[in-house]
């Protein structure tokens, strides 16, 4: 660490010297100065502007701020530079009007390919122009002439972005510290227990995905379109509309254009819908992936395996799903929301899984899932109808329905009929089936027994899923499911279960009370599968454990999502999202964070070179951020140092090669 810092320091000094900056200043800081002390010095900035005058002035100003500056007068060159040296820049300053490429296009490319904050500049200070910049995802818009004071502050965008990414990670980590009640999410969306659960699962998922991504070094996860590019916030309602549109058209025939028409949402573009559809499709594929696409699931399973120790999932690669957190966050969220709402709404109707119900019942109540509940409700209601279509469109799961129904009966839990545990053989179907079943259950019976049955959905332990007994009903696996905490739900009947089991293995922080990991990783996935309403506080009944667990998971995922959302808020764009670091506080619940959920590493794999300890304030107003600021501090410390060093090493050689003047000439040619 110290070495790294020294390297950084010397780097700064060197670059400062070469850039005729104040090397002296940075070296004065002392040898053992933490990287934090140097921050924001050493911030690597890429400036793109076709106006050489401004370029030179900006370069000088940025050097005065002790940043490491690279200038470029052509957008295309800048883009190739960014692609070549991914991870070598922290923030980009770009002019809007450039001859070879529109600044907005560059902005979009950067947003798509690399998660870097982009600040636009222009002499045009008209509101419409600024609005356009924000809409395209700029995290800030400076009006020329740019003053040095404005440039001094650009580091906040970097930090904000990192923090948002880390926050979710932190969440899970902190949760796993069994600090459930830390939530205090000001977001107050979800009950703390739910949050915890969700956080735990989310964290796990995130961690895994993060690790996975970092290892791979690839940011383009399953779905490049899941990057922040589409700045639309896929709220629960919006997703609900989307799903109903898809259902109407039929999943196979759904094309973005038609979906867009059906949705009839002003301001929504075809591209937004297209990317969302892609995510949705991937999600469906995944949940049905075991049977249909071994290829797809396997890779997913890969990274997951070690971490999750999931037993064979049987048909569903839930674990992979869970672990990889591949499920599109927003879809997860939406489903989760749905599921969540469902239980609450239909709890009384006694889902077959008493635990589930109970969880759901309790979940919403206990957890601040108020929000979740509220918007779950409408979602659920609509979704049911829409989902009815779905099962048909999805393939296989036929038995699922029957299986589901059967399951509950087998459950120890007397809850009731169908386990909507959503364990359809096809994951996708699972969800749908789950919903359907729930619906049916509601209608068919009222089994308020659920609550009694599952006092607490402690997924983990209790997950002795009855399913084991009803192997027939569970398409997934016939082996008895060992509900041990650690689980191994080897055969999770449904995604939810799989998730659960994976979760349980993971023993991540308990989600709320659900302690387990199960919830954590499955959080996201579960969102889809089960009506969340899983309040961690509900300890799962053994029978319903799985259900509960899944429910809980969902809740947790719900909650998780919440926290995530908030971080997301922070960096979600203004109106519609996309912001890199713009602090949009908690208004956008469902937005960006959800995207983070599924593709967790989108935003978080940015090496956090800069310790966030000191910068708690920049966190968006989301209380979430505040809540976890301490955690961030502790946690982040590690990363920045390590990565910082790496980056520094990476950066240094490159930068040192180019004295500022050369840089300019190189790029301005």
């Amino acid at each position, binding site marked *: 660490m110290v070495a790294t810092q020294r390297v950084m320091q010397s780097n700064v000094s060197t670059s400062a010297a070469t850039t005729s900056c104040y090397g002296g200043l940075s070296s004065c800081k002392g040898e053992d100065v933490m990287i934090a002390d140097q921050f924001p010095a050493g911030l690597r900035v890429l400036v793109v502007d076709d*106006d050489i*005058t401004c370029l030179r002035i900006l370069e*000088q*100003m940025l050097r005065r701020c002790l940043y490491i500056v690279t200038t470029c007068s052509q957008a295309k060159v800048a883009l190739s530079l960014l692609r070549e040296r991914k991870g070598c820049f922290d923030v980009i300053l770009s*002019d809007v009007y450039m001859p070879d490429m529109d600044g907005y296009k560059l902005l979009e490319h950067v947003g798509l390919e690399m998660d870097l904050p982009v600040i636009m500049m*222009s*002499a045009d200070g008209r509101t419409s122009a600024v609005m356009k910049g924000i809409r395209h995802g700029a995290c800030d818009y400076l009006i*020329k002439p740019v*003053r*040095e004071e404005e440039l001094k502050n650009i580091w906040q965008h970097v930090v904000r972005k990192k923090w948002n990414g880390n926050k979710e990670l932190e969440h899970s980590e902190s949760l796993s510290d069994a600090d459930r009640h830390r939530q205090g999410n000001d977001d107050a969306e979800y009950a703390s227990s739910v949050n915890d659960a969700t956080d735990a699962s989310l964290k796990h998922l995130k961690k895994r995905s993060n690790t996975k991504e970092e290892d791979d070094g690839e940011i383009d996860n399953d779905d490049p379109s899941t990057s922040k590019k589409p700045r639309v916030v896929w709220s629960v309602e919006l997703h609900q509309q989307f799903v109903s549109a898809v259902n109407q058209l039929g999943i196979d025939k759904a094309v973005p254009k038609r979906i867009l028409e059906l949705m009839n949402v002003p301001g929504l573009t075809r591209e937004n819908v297209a990317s969302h559809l892609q995510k949705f499709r991937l999600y469906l594929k995944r949940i049905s992936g075991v049977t249909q696409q071994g290829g797809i699931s396997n890779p997913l399973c890969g990274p997951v395996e070690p971490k999750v120790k999931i037993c064979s999932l049987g048909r569903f690669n839930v674990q992979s799903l869970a672990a990889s957190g591949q499920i599109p966050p927003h879809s997860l969220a939406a489903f989760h929301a749905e599921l969540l709402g469902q239980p609450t709404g239909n709890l009384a109707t006694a889902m077959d899984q008493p635990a589930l119900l109970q969880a759901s019942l309790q979940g919403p109540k206990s957890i601040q899932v108020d929000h979740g509940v509220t918007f779950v409700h409408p979602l659920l209601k609509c979704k049911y109808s829409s989902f009815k279509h779905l099962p048909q469109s999805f393939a296989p799961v036929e038995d699922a329905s029957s299986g589901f129904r059967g399951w509950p009966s087998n459950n120890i839990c007397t809850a009731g009929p169908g386990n909507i545990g959503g364990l359809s053989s096809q994951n996708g179907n699972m969800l749908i089936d789950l919903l359907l079943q729930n619906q049916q259950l509601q209608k068919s019976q009222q089994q308020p027994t659920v609550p009694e049955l599952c006092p607490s959905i402690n997924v983990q332990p209790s997950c002795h899923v009855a399913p084991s007994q009803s192997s027939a009903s569970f398409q997934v696996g016939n082996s008895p499911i060992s509900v041990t905490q650690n689980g191994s739900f080897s055969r999770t009947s449904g995604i939810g279960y799989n998730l659960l089991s994976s979760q349980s293995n993971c023993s991540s922080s308990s989600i709320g009370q659900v302690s387990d990991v199960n919830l954590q990783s499955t959080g996201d996935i579960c969102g889809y599968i089960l009506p969340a309403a899983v309040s961690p506080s509900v300890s799962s009944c053994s029978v319903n454990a799985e259900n509960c667990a899944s429910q809980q998971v969902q809740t947790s995922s719900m909650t998780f999502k919440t926290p995530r959302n908030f971080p997301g808020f922070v960096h979600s764009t203004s109106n519609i999202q996309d912001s890199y670091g713009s602090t949009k506080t908690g208004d956008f619940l469902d937005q960006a964070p959800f995207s983070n959920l599924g593709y967790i590493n989108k935003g978080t794999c940015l090496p956090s070179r800069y310790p966030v300890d000191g910068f708690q304030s920049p966190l968006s107003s989301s209380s979430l951020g505040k809540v976890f600021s301490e955690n961030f501090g502790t946690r982040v410390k590690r990363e920045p140092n390590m990565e910082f060093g790496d980056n520094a090493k990476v950066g240094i050689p490159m930068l040192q090669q180019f004295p500022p003047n050369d840089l300019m000439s190189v790029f301005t040619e």
Partner: protein
Amino acid sequence: MLGLDADQLRADMNRLLAFLFHQGILDEQFLQLQQLQDENSPNFVSEVVNIYFHESEKLLRNLRSLLTMDRELLSFDKIGIHLNQFIGSSSSIGAQRVRNICVAFRAASDNNNRTGCLRSLEVLEHEHCILKNKLHELFQIEQQILLAAAVRYPVLN
């Protein structure tokens, strides 16, 4: 030159600067530029100003050729783009009057007002010329100050 010592030259320079600020030819952004100059980049201001004039002359030539094109070929969008850059660079170095004229020019261009654009271009070229002369004068005085200071401390063998 012999008669001008550094103090007098400095007074001249300050007077010129005051005049330029008073006339609105330069604004406080120019001061920022001067503050950016330090021992590490001692010629920063003159360097930037040189770049500016180099670029702005190109822009002016382009603008003129664009406006003197046939009416059918006239592209106000292109003019607008050039003007944007002109506004950006002028405001960045603190050339206030030039910038203001560019803004008016842009307004005329937005309205597809060819006559207005031509008139603005005339004024712009004129103002640009004044700025160039004044800044050139400023740099000359600066150089003389440096020389005068050097004369004061001749190198002794």
